[in-house]
């Protein structure tokens, strides 16, 4: 099974065949042989799916909410997919990917894929858009990207979605945390989960207050709409249909206002920037371990050059001598 050719895999992909789509994502994720071909195939066919970013603190109830949304979408005859991102242990490089526990991929027919934060060539910022595009091209819609909104890369990833949903739990003081992480500005929709618990209305009030401040500061005008706040109890399913319709409502708003095209524009710009940076990072690492790099490092160490001047010398060498071997042709 592991020896199937890329052509064979791509032939099976449009029907959303689980095994094929699973394989394609793996190849794209680690930038293996055929990744370029798959990316071309997927990019040409993508653009139909509504991309929904779902984020929130660990334990806020994101996975349970996504599990509920999958059931709502399946009932409506849609074919959703989920990319669930979970942290990798910084010590061992391993990860426990447990988001599927709350999602029934058999009953809902949803495609659920777990991704660890590390272990991708070029990092999460490149692996996620690549995988989302494969799911989009394979006909899944909507495509959900779920991450804990920790760290700038993760905020960028969910912020680049068509609709970004921030989940906060009752009584967690999440509103302040979210505002620290910059998530409030990127969220198009707020979900206050565990609404049956004490503190749910406080959380709602906090969010409302923050949104009011957004109006004062002019942020609301720039984004063109005031994000909705939906109360849910994911464990019972209460309010989940409300989240699904708020997502649809936002999708309509995006299309009618022309924002959807702008979101796409931002996403592409972000990804091209990230990919260009990743290419340069590889070149820098390569140069630093070469003879020229060692000369520059040594000069800085002897205080013959400042670290900044050594860095300029390294960068100048990269600009002067274009590298013919792209990462695609340089696999060890």
């Amino acid at each position, binding site marked *: *099974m*592991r020896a199937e050719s890329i052509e064979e895999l791509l032939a099976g992909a449009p029907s959303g065949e*689980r*095994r094929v*789509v*699973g*394989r394609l*994502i*793996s190849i794209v994720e*680690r930038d293996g042989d055929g990744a370029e071909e798959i990316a071309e195939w997927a990019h040409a066919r993508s653009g139909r799916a509504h991309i929904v970013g779902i984020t929130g603190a660990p334990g806020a109830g994101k996975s349970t909410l996504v599990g509920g949304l999958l059931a709502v979408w399946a009932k409506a005859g849609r074919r959703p997919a989920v990319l669930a991102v979970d942290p*990798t*242990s910084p*010590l*061992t*490089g*391993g*990860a*426990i*990917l*447990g988001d*599927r*526990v709350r999602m*029934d*991929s*058999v009953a809902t027919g949803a*495609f*659920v*894929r*777990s991704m*660890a934060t*590390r*272990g*991708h*060539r070029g990092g999460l910022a490149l692996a996620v858009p690549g995988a989302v595009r494969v799911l989009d091209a394979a006909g899944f819609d909507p495509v959900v990207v779920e991450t804990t909104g920790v760290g700038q890369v993760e905020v960028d990833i969910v912020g680049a979605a068509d609709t970004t949903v921030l989940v906060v739990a009752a009584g967690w003081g999440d509103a302040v945390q979210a505002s620290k992480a910059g998530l409030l500005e990127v969220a198009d929709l707020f979900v206050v989960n565990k609404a049956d618990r004490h503190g749910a209305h406080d959380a709602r009030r906090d969010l409302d207050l923050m949104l009011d401040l957004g109006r004062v500061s002019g942020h609301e005008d720039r984004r063109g709409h005031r994000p909705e706040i939906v109360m849910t109890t994911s464990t019972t399913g209460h309010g989940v249909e409300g989240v699904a319709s708020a997502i649809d409502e936002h999708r309509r708003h995006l299309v009618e206002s022309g924002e959807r095209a702008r979101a796409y524009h931002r996403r592409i710009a972000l990804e091209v920037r990230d990919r260009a940076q990743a290419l340069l990072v*590889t070149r820098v690492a390569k140069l630093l371990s070469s003879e020229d790099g060692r000369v520059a490092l040594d000069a800085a160490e002897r205080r013959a050059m400042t670290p900044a001047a050594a860095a300029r010398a390294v960068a100048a060498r990269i600009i002067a001598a274009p590298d013919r071997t792209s990462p695609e042709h340089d696999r*060890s």
Partner: protein
Amino acid sequence: MPHRPAIRIVLAKLGLDGHDRGLKVVARILRDAGMEVIYLGLRQSAESVVAAVEQEDAHAVGLSLHNASHLTLAPRMVGALAAAAIDAPVIVGGIIPDDDADELRRAGVAAVLGPGASADEVVRAVRDAVAGRS
């Protein structure tokens, strides 16, 4: 830059069997050995495990069986994977009598781990099973 992709393994308990403590310990052991553990937890079926292995493009399946139905459930899992043309080894852990362990191996189970298995033995069993297939 990562040199080799991490082993991805799906861990599950099949049917009505609420004893998931062992499986959680195994998940942690495998994570600490650098693997990506896709944890499905309780009340899974052969069908739901096959779906997860396909979508996650996993290399192996680890089952924890503590309800004496291993002779039924483990071969069913091996059969379901084969029926879906998935070449992923099945590793079984739990309370398995020696005679039954032999029978499970004959039925295509790659390794059987008892309650006394050390962390190293668990990791080695998974690595060997995956290496044996690729």
